[in-house]
């Protein structure tokens, strides 16, 4: 799960309080511990999603590229924009080095929900009720491949 997020980046979805969805790419992602993901966003990406998150901090994201089918998960949480501090400094430096991104802000998403989105009988199954060991075993049983390098 972590490897897919960090190798492929993610599609980030936010919505206005009235329910109008917006999407931007989180091209550089860094998992922070077990429950947070930091995305380095450029100025143009921030301009689209920051006004939405200012009114409604809820974020849903899925893994980009092949990860959309090979890493069939939906992650949900709340987002906060960082423009200074250790996480901002580390993530923006790595995003510049690895992806050439001029980071305007880091979107830190604190995860609260996790769902399986694999087509079939498990589609929509909520997974965050599992303890980490149980979830790891569940994942290993179903997914045999992980990306080998950043795209």
């Amino acid at each position, binding site marked *: 799960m972590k490897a897919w997020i960090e190798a492929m980046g993610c*599609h980030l*979805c936010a*919505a206005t309080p*009235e329910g109008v*969805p917006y999407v*931007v790419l989180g*091209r550089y992602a860094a998992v922070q511990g077990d429950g947070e993901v930091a995305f380095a966003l450029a100025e*143009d990406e921030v301009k689209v999603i920051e006004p939405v998150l200012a009114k409604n901090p809820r974020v849903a994201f899925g893994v980009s590229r092949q990860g*959309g089918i090979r890493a069939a998960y939906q992650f949900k949480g709340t987002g906060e924009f960082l423009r200074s501090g250790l996480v901002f400094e580390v993530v923006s430096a790595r995003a510049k080095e690895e992806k050439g991104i001029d980071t305007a802000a880091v979107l830190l998403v604190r995860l609260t929900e996790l769902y399986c989105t694999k087509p079939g009988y498990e589609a929509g199954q909520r997974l965050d009720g599992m303890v980490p060991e149980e979830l790891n075993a569940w994942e290993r049983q179903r997914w045999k491949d992980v990306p080998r390098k950043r795209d």
Partner: protein
Amino acid sequence: MVKFTKEMKEALRVPGKGGSLIYLCTSSRDGNPNIAAMRFVATHMDDKILIADMFLLKTKANIKENPNVAVTICHPLDEGRWWVFRGKAVDIEYGFPRDFDWYGANATDILNEWGNWNKAEPPDEVPPDIVFPKAVQRGVVVVHVEEAYSIEPGHTGERVL
């Protein structure tokens, strides 16, 4: 009124025909976002995106209470397919009135052509370890696209339709 480009129509097809895996983004009425990948996708007329309703749960519930959706390309991204299409969606299920109209799209026409999508465009390109064992289609989501913006790095947010 929008009109898809040739490149957009080529991208908004099933992956096995050179199209794309897409993300369908919906929201509850009070702004709880949801994002789910979809394989069965096509265009209809010049401004409609069609998506099979096969395993939709939260997506379906959201569309029933809030028609605002966004559709974007999940994979492949590196062929100039940097678009987010925004518009209003309905899930035309079996049992809809035959003359139901969604911004010019007729329910009977949609279900006649796309109601048995797995047979028409079987998922032959999907690896056997992740292909679904049995496809049960309950309808077709019709997205009436009203605008589109770019998510190309450096151009995110720029209107393309």
